[in-house]
């Protein structure tokens, strides 16, 4: 078997008495969508933050492409090819949609310390940004101020910015939230294809999307992984049904 693209080993994070991540070990393999599900407050976002480098774990490690990146910060991990989207949008709200996408292109190409040539005259950056916007269907809103976007559109822009990075793995925290039925269907189709470019660790509440998309599913409850398996295995798992799907087994 090939080495996983991304791996956590025994990740543990405590907030006071609360253990938000309790010895979590999971991996993300080339070409797959690995869905991370669990009730609200289970620690999904906290786990993503530790993988992305914005939160330091108390114990355990994160490996990316075989390298231990536990001690690297967000910037270093992003530059190694980790693309992240946020549950609560983190965008430059005063900037236009295009400028947000351009920012991603600037970061990805390491051009942030160029002072003279206008960013809008850099055709390489523009091409990268507009292509990413077109892929999520935001091309017509390129000139719109980001603050004017709906929640769903902001979520799409988050994905577009991550695309400009051409990452080696995606971390997506609830990208479907607020999209509406049509929008989440389109994004589901899109993510299904995107996995061929880079694997996706997908936190998602929409179970239809998860069951349609995921190659594997991990279930997180109170910070602990209670199961990892294929869609069928998770559907059949008694503990999962009891703890998460809310059924009596």
């Amino acid at each position, binding site marked *: 078997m090939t080495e996983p693209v991304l791996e956590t080993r025994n990740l543990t994070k405590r907030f006071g008495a609360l253990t938000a991540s309790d010895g979590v070990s999971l991996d993300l393999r080339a070409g797959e969508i690995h869905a991370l599900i669990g009730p609200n407050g289970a620690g999904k976002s906290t786990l993503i933050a530790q993988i992305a480098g914005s939160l330091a774990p108390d114990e355990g490690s994160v490996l990316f492409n075989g390298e231990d990146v536990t001690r690297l910060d*967000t*910037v270093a991990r992003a530059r190694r090819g980790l693309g992240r989207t946020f549950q609560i949008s*983190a965008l*430059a709200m005063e900037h236009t949609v295009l*400028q947000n996408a351009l920012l991603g292109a600037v970061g990805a190409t390491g051009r942030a*310390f160029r*002072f003279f040539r*206008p960013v809008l005259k850099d055709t390489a950056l523009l091409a990268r940004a507009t292509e990413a916007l077109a892929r999520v269907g935001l091309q017509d809103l390129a000139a719109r101020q980001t603050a004017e976007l709906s929640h769903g559109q902001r979520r799409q822009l988050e994905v577009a910015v991550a695309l*400009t990075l051409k990452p080696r793995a995606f971390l997506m925290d609830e990208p479907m939230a607020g999209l509406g039925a049509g929008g989440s269907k389109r994004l589901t189709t899109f993510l299904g294809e995107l996995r061929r470019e880079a694997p996706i660790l997908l936190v998602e509440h929409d179970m239809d999307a998860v069951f349609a998309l995921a190659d594997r599913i991990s279930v997180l409850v109170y910070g602990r992984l209670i199961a990892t398996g294929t869609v069928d295995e998770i559907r059949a798992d008694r503990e999962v049904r009891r703890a998460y799907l809310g059924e009596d087994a």
Partner: protein
Amino acid sequence: MRRETLLNAVIMGALLLVPLWAWVADEPFTITLATRVAILSLAGVGLNIALGLGGLVSLGHAIFFGIGGYAMGILASHAQDYSPLLESPFLIEGTKSMPVIWLVAIVTSALAALVIGALSLRTSGVYFIMITLAFGQMFFFFTISWPAYGGEDGLSIYVRNGFPGLNTLDPIQFFAICFVLLSLALFASSRISRSPFGLALTAARQSETRVLTVGIDSFRLRLVAFTISGAITGLAGALFADLNRFVSPTMFSWQTSGEIIIFVILGGVGRLFGPVAGAALFILLEHFLGGLSEFWQIYLGFLLLAVVLFARGGLIGTLAGREVAHD
């Protein structure tokens, strides 16, 4: 043409035409007033890069203004006394050459900004304001207690420094120098704000997380911005000292820092010509209201209050409308 571009052209045109008219009409005092506007604008253009683009509320920009001033004062005073600045390990002499003085002012204030930025940019918000203020006070009290260069009384330079091929004692020629330097700084500032660096810096002001997530080190962005900002304000300090032929610790005072912030806020934070509009308005108010009452700053206070409450975009924002994305 965009409305803001037009307004900028009008402002720059006025700043050029008023002293030219004064020159023809033989009104040297008006030329000096315009020169003050140009120099203080330049200081504001520097601050605007940190404050307007980076969102860094520095209450310490007087440091760079003062360093520029003292760079001029120290170099010129040694030149006028024919005493070397340093004898060992190697000889450094004073100079009365403006370009050399400018270079020294830019380099020393950039270095100071680099060090101060490295120490203070780990903090943000009110802590950053307080740390920059504290550094400013350190410089202020240091110069007061530094007798070699006049201490509290400051330093007088008898003859204005020279520029090859120009008579700098002629007010209109000195104005021309300041105007050209201001124009260059505005050009640089406009380039920076549209560059990849400017995009990343303004994005970091809005969402630090976003910038980090695309792999850009926001601390480095701010440090570079602060350094460029300090260097430009430092150059303004050297010119200001040359205009007055005098430097004193006042240049380092927190009131000076506050005034530079006022230029930027009055004119419009983050707007390219905001500092020019703000400095011009400030000097006009000082000139006309100052003639009416010693307490003219009360009116300035009301005006600032009005800007902050009702016209966040300052003068430029009020006249040219909301900022639009560059195209």
